[in-house]
């Protein structure tokens, strides 16, 4: 941002004016000045800034980390002895570890920028004057920051530490601009990426291998193989392969197509081009050919192809802005820096060569540890020097960098965990039942084989003479008296066993798998077509991206939700303001752009407009256009100045034209103003200020330009105290054009009200009381409030502060604490200006959805990358958290701390449960038992709030189970500051410990791993790119559709598939048992009375269509009912539609029905003339009618299609039998043509047959109904 111009004009009132020299007085040098003076400074600063707080340091010193926290500050005091402590040690001790975690995890770009800008002081130089090399200073800073130990003692250790981090063998050596040498020793991965699963060669084996994970397929394969043996071939050899081949082929084609699409997108990605320095010239090269060690140039708005260390940017100060949306889902710009030395070199067009030593590839996108040897000196590199693959360069002309990680080794790729193929829970259960069925099958075959053995043994001597069993050739000839086709009784038994397997094979229904696929397609069709789930704003329909897990939607117990963009619209809106004790914004004028226009047109001559329009309060607007006299007016003026100045937002102007405006920051005709900042709140405040005429126009390190009603004012920024979670406020010291110096502070109400001036007059008192009442009002409306205050600084104060500030901000040890102390110097005795209220607009219907989900017994966890405070306030506004909840906050900074916090939390949980007068056990019992609401007697529901830093310790340790216990006990869990993989870790925590189904919903790339990890991943088609949608199983436009998706479609899908599976088991088992009973009457020879064709067509034609139709169309309850009574959703996770009990009941039912089905005709035609094919046909028709009636009885809603399908398939079955009988080559020929069936009908054998079956079903159904009625 810093321009080439000297920017000192507004600053140089002090002694430093114009002097580039940095001296002990501790005054400021702007970057532009300090750079040429000594590049060393900044490098030190870099060292000092980042490393001490890096998470990895903490991790690496687990043994010692317990020093961090309270102790660190105490022991830090000797280091910071040059202070005359304003703040007492006690205060310091009270500072908790949050602070560290805040800084370390944020790796705050603002902080770094800020330090680069202001940090270079002579003091620092003096401080480190004993340092021969910079790496030593790096070590010191690292160590002391970490352990808070006196310098002298820690030095030897620190050296070790550094060695630990970048030990030779662990490190990766990258020779800048020398890819050949870089890749010489170690072959680093190229930049080619591959997300596809298969290649042309591996497709067939791999795909088949994956497909055969379905146990049933193996079974069918075995059956098909058996059928190939000539002694056993019951059905045609090739015919028996068809069903399996068909299923395999369909799935393979589907998989192949999906993989082909992945290949295509990989190819597109790999073939994109980038500019690479090759033999001193910039040449275009394909992404996939990029090698580690190459130097490349990226232009504005381009995507970064690999992880690279910045060497230089279009900005002389080495700043670059990137958008990391694809990585962490945050849409705001982040700043990255090139090292000054290299940046200079790049700028001067020198070729750069050097050696970068960096850590091995890892997944942590918030961390990078490396150092660089350049011009014979060692510099450290950190996270702020690296740009990652997938990011986009914004607002910066170009950057030059050296590739350090490429292809699969990039952090982005490492973070995209391979998407596991998901299988629905129900299907897993189904596999279990399939196992049971195979046991039945085995038993049946065993019975047949044993029977066969016994029978043969009984008739062994007669076998030659049995007219129906001849074992010997008696025909004259060479074979005379030779035994034929007889292998001896044991083998006969064995063959009998195998062939009965073949006969009974459809006990395990292969058609079920095809049916399920079809049904799921049908269900998806309805989900996609549901107009209630169409987002008319973004125009996005519901999408089913995965067809395997529809029914899982009905069994969800845990919903893991991202916050930003999922629960909220990710748009902050300035709503209310209390200025000078007066409440504004009660009636906002959005719909009056004309008036606003006229006012602004009249009073300002600005030529830009905001990207977003903001509603303004006319009263306040009018006030602001008055002359700058009067108390009220001045307070309002200061108020809005504070809004515009006290932030870290970067204004970005873009032209309306097509030309790139990135370099045209100073062109006055820039047209659109957009604010980029880490905090959406700040953006909202700045935008609001702009709407009221105080437009933040320009921000550089040393000054800001604010356009006040058309008049451009330049303010010097003397210093800034960043927001931190301890102080809960931020302040900025600015020098007004008239040389007055003011500190502007904004912060959370509780932290602000305590530091307001005490000895205030009556007016102030009234103002304060009024503001406080406004604040209460705002927060009760769910708005996020901030208090704005200011204070004039006298020259003495300023000098004192400045001295301290310079010292602190360049300090290598305990900088944060020192800065905090410094801030305390000026953040006191403030004059209250007012308060603001911002609304983070929740998406429509979010609280209702969450409420419904909760009623449905689903636990909603929010996992967000946001700060703890933000997360809590959003939790409150979406009614996830309620005021009456007791919040357990876990934000430890070390393993021990976390352990302690968890223990406390656990104590709290169990205290609660024991206070209910029950034993400790109840605690766990509850966790399992809370199918419905928790008992009311529990006084305070608990909410667990845990942050990402604690999760680092918890998720990898045995603490995991503790967390699990607490988390499942708490009603609400909010995780803040979590990294993408941690989100997945949390999902995994639940997934691995319970059988409960999990659903993850998110909209950003940072949610991808979570979405893939969860049983069901739902993507929101939001503003944050398409990654989440691409990784998801289902995608939709709004969070609120989740309610309908789960409660309605999930419920239906689950019910349907559950019934479908049971019915399919029933249908085939009835048929097989019928065959089985008959075999018992045929001397255990595997005779089937049915024709082969009927056997084959039974599950394919005779009975399949109604199954599919019912599976797609049947509804037990209407969507209104389901939405009205969310508790109905419980049937899903209680497995009520499909469970082992139902399975056994179905099987018992099957046994009974098959006996009736088989027995009635048998007894009726005992000792009669009936032939086998006639009775076979009778059985065929009867079983078809029976199963269809059974289905008909279970159908909940009859639509026309159901009627057609059910009765139609009975008719079709009948017709098929007739057709089959009229083909002369079949042995059953002529049955129907000679009117035999008709004869049966006449003799009423036939309907008779059905009656008992129907009655059985009726009785069964009724018994079930009655049982239900009794229970209910």
């Amino acid at each position: 941002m810093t321009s080439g111009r000297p920017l000192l004009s507004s600053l140089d009132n002090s002694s430093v004016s114009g002097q580039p020299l940095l001296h002990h007085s501790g005054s400021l040098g702007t970057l532009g000045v300090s750079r040429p003076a000594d590049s060393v400074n900044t490098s030190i600063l870099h060292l000092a800034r980042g490393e001490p707080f890096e998470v990895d340091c903490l991790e690496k010193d687990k043994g010692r980390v317990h020093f961090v926290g309270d102790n660190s500050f105490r022991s830090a005091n000797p280091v910071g002895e040059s202070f005359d402590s304003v703040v007492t040690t006690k205060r310091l001790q009270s500072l908790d570890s949050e602070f560290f975690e805040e800084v370390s995890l944020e790796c705050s770009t603002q902080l770094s920028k800020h330090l680069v800008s202001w940090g270079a002081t002579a003091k620092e130089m003096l401080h480190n004057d004993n340092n021969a090399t910079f790496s030593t200073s790096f070590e010191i800073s690292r160590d002391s920051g970490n352990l808070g130990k006196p310098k002298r003692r820690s030095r030897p250790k620190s050296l070790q530490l550094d060695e630990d981090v970048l030990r030779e063998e662990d490190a990766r050596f990258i020779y800048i601009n020398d890819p050949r040498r870089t890749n010489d020793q170690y072959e680093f991965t190229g930049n080619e990426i591959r997300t596809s699963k298969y290649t042309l060669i591996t497709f067939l084996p791999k795909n088949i291998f994956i497909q055969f994970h379905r146990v049933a397929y193996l079974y069918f394969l075995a059956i098909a193989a058996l059928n190939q043996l000539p002694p056993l071939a019951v059905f045609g050899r090739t015919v028996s392969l068809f069903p399996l081949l068909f299923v395999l082929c369909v799935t393979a084609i589907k998989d192949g197509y999906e993989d082909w699409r992945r290949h295509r997108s990989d190819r597109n990605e790999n073939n994109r081009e980038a500019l690479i320095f090759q033999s001193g010239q910039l040449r275009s090269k394909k992404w996939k050919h990029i090698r580690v060690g190459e130097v490349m140039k990226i232009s504005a708005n381009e995507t970064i192809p690999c992880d690279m260390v910045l060497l230089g940017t279009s900005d002389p100060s080495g700043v670059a802005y990137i958008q990391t949306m694809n990585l962490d889902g945050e849409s705001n710009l982040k700043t990255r820096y090139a090292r000054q030395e290299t940046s200079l070199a790049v700028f001067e067009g020198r070729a750069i060569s050097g050696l970068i030593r960096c850590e091995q590839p890892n997944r942590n996108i918030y961390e990078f540890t490396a150092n660089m040897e350049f011009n014979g000196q060692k510099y450290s590199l950190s996270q702020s020097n690296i740009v990652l693959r997938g990011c986009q360069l914004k607002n910066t002309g170009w950057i030059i960098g050296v590739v350090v990680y490429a292809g699969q080794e990039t952090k982005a790729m490492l973070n995209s965990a391979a998407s596991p193929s998901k299988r629905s829970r129900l299907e897993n259960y189904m596999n279990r039942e399939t196992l049971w069925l195979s046991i039945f099958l085995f038993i049946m075959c065993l019975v047949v084989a044993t029977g066969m053995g016994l029978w043969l043994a009984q008739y062994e001597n007669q076998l030659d003479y049995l007219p129906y069993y001849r074992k010997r050739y008696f025909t004259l000839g060479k074979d005379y008296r030779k035994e034929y086709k007889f292998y001896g009784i044991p083998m006969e038994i064995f063959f009998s066993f195998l062939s009965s397997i073949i006969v009974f094979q459809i006990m395990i229904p292969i058609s079920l798998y095809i049916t399920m696929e079809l049904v799921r397609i049908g269900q998806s069709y309805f989900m996609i077509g549901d107009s209630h789930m169409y987002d008319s704003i973004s125009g996005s329909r519901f999408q089913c991206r995965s067809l395997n897990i529809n029914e899982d939607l009905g069994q969800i117990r845990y919903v893991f939700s991202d916050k930003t963009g999922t629960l909220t619209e990710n748009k902050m809106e300035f709503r209310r303001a209390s200025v000078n004790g007066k409440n504004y914004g009660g009636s906002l004028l959005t719909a009056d752009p004309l008036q606003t226009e006229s006012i602004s047109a009249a009073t300002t001559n600005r030529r830009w407009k905001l990207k977003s329009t903001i509603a303004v309060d006319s009263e306040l607007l009018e006030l602001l256009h008055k002359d700058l006299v009067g108390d009220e007016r001045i307070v309002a003026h200061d108020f809005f100045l504070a809004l515009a100045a006290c932030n870290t937002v970067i204004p970005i102007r873009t032209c309306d034209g097509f030309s790139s405006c990135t370099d045209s920051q100073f062109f006055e005709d820039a047209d659109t103003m957009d604010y980029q900042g880490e905090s959406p709140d700040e953006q909202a405040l700045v935008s609001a200020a702009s709407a009221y005429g105080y437009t933040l126009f320009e921000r550089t390190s040393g000054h800001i330009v604010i356009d006040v009603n058309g008049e451009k004012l330049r303010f010097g920024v003397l210093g800034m105290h960043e927001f931190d979670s301890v102080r809960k406020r931020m302040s900025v010291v600015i020098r007004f054009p008239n040389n007055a110096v003011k500190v502007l502070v904004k912060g959370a109400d509780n932290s602000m009200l305590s530091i307001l001036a005490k000895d205030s007059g009556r007016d102030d008192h009234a103002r304060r009381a009024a503001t406080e009442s406004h604040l209460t009002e705002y927060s009760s409306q769910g708005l996020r409030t901030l208090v704005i205050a200011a204070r004039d600084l006298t020259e003495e104060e300023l000098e004192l502060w400045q001295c301290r500030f310079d010292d602190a901000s360049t300090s290598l040890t305990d900088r944060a604490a020192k800065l905090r102390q410094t801030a305390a110097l000026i953040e006191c005795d403030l004059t209250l200006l007012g308060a603001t209220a911002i609304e983070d607009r929740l998406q429509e219907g979010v609280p209702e959805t969450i409420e419904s989900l909760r009623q449905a017994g689903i636990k909603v966890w929010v996992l967000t990358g946001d700060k703890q405070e933000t997360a809590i306030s959003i939790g409150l506004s979406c009614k996830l958290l309620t005021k009456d909840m007791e919040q357990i906050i876990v934000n430890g900074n070390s393993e021990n701390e976390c352990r302690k916090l968890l223990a406390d939390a656990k104590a709290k949980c169990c205290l609660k449960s024991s206070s209910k007068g029950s034993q400790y056990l109840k605690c766990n019992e509850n966790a399992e038992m809370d199918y419905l609401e928790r008992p009311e007697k529990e006084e305070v529901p608990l909410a667990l709030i845990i942050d990402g830093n604690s999760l680092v310790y918890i998720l990898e340790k045995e603490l995991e189970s503790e967390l699990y216990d607490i988390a499942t006990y708490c009603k609400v869990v909010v995780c803040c500051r979590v990294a993408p993989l941690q989100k997945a870790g949390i999902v995994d925590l639940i997934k691995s410990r319970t059988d409960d189904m999990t659903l993850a919903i998110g909209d950003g790339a940072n949610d991808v791993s979570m979405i893939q990890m969860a049983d069901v991943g739902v993507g929101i088609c939001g503003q944050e790119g398409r990654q989440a949608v691409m990784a998801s199983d289902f995608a939709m436009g709004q969070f609120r559709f989740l309610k309908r998706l789960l409660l309605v479609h999930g419920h239906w899908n689950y019910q349907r598939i559950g019934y479908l599976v049971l019915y399919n088991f029933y249908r085939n088992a009835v048929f097989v048992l019928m065959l089985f009973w008959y075999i018992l009457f045929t001397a255990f020879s595997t005779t089937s009375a049915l024709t082969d064709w009927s056997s084959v067509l039974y599950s394919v034609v005779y009975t399949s269509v109604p199954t599919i139709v019912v599976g797609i169309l049947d509804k037990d309850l209407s969507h209104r009912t389901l939405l009205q009574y969310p508790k109905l959703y419980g049937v899903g996770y209680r497995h009520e539609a499909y469970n082992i009990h139902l399975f056994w009941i179905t099987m018992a039912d099957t046994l009974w029905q098959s006996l009736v089905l088989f027995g009635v005709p048998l007894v009726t035609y005992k000792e009669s003339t009936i032939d086998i094919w006639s009775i076979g046909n009778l059985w065929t028709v009867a079983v078809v009618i029976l199963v269809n009636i059974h289905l008909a009885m279970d159908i909940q809603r009859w639509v026309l299609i159901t009627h057609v399908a059910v009765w139609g398939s009975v008719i079709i079955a009948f017709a098929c039998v007739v057709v089959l009988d009229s083909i002369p080559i079949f042995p059953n020929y002529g049955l129907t043509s000679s009117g035999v069936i008709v004869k049966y009908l006449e003799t009423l054998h036939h309907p008779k047959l059905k009656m008992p079956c129907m009655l059985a079903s009726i009785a069964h159904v009724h018994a079930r109904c009655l049982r239900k009625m009794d229970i209910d």
Partner: protein
Amino acid sequence: MAMPSFLEEDTTLIDVNRDDPSSSSEGGGSDGDDKSILAHEIESKKPPTYSRFTQQELPACKPIITPKLVIVSFTLIGFLFIPIGKTALSASNNVVEIAKRYDMECIPEIYSNNILHYIQSVGTNKTCTVKFTVPKHMKGPVFIYYQLTNFYQNYRKMSYGVPLRSRIKDTKYMGSRSDRQLTSKAYEGAELEKCEPLEKVGEEPIVPCGLVAWSMFNDTYSFSVKDKALIVNKTNIAWESDKETRFGSDVYPKNFQTGDVIGGAKLNSSIPLSEQEDLMVWMRTATLRNFRKLYGRIDVDLEANDEIAVEIQNNYNSYGYGGEKLLVLSTTSAFGGQNKFLGVAYLTVGGFCFFFAIIFAIIYHFKRREIGDTAYLSWNRNPVGYYMK
């Protein structure tokens, strides 16, 4: 008829299915790409087409099985079944059936220790006379059956044909035949492999080949009342379709029963198969090991107390496998032959229906509940909130 009657639309309180179409969609819109369910990428910006089908709001009826409905339907079933059962039972009782086992009776005393020899040797006299009395008046036509027991005509012997060489799919007793061969002279040699080992004599095919034909029943009966012979009508005992299509009129028995071991009947090689009705009857393999097959008809009435003498040619070797042979004379009714089971079953089921209807009615009367009473929902019923499975 046993299905519960369908109520128009949904009448339960908790299930109101009728959705107002106007509330659910703005409707209209041109046809979206509804066919591309599988095409994930296609992200239609168009709203989904509204139709009652796609919104799953098709008019439907939902049968609600109310206690009343159950009681009524059970009663109706009872009312329907009991008369049917009664009719069937009485019809069965009206059927007169005489079954006479003769296989042991027809062995001369001297052969009683050597039955197999007796039955297998060609020279022995196998004629025997059996007498029985007609218990009741038997209205013509009176059907004559022979009944065999323990004969697994449904036996399916697995095909262990020589691997690879043979194309045999299915060799079993009931499969040991070539249906194709029987249809026409042209196919005499067709599908002979199914008939192994009785497929050829030398290189000449056997017609009809296979175990089934080979083991054909060959006892003959001639009846006389008071020394006056009764004419046994042996025409039209086989199925029409068999005569017309399955057994060709140009196919003559050939090389039949010429082997070393004679299984059963010999066929007159001058009569085409389409006229050999006994063969047709035999070739309809029976369902169970005990079966009857139609032998012929006596078209005249038999008076009660008539003594019928049957001269039997006891040729068939049922002794080798321990089977019995029975001669059966039976009249028919609308429900077929004599079979009490049918009537009893109907009566039983009908009775049970009545019984349950009454039980349900009593329960319903004393423990009546309104349908759709939300107070009975599990979470309303149990304020503590514990839900036991």
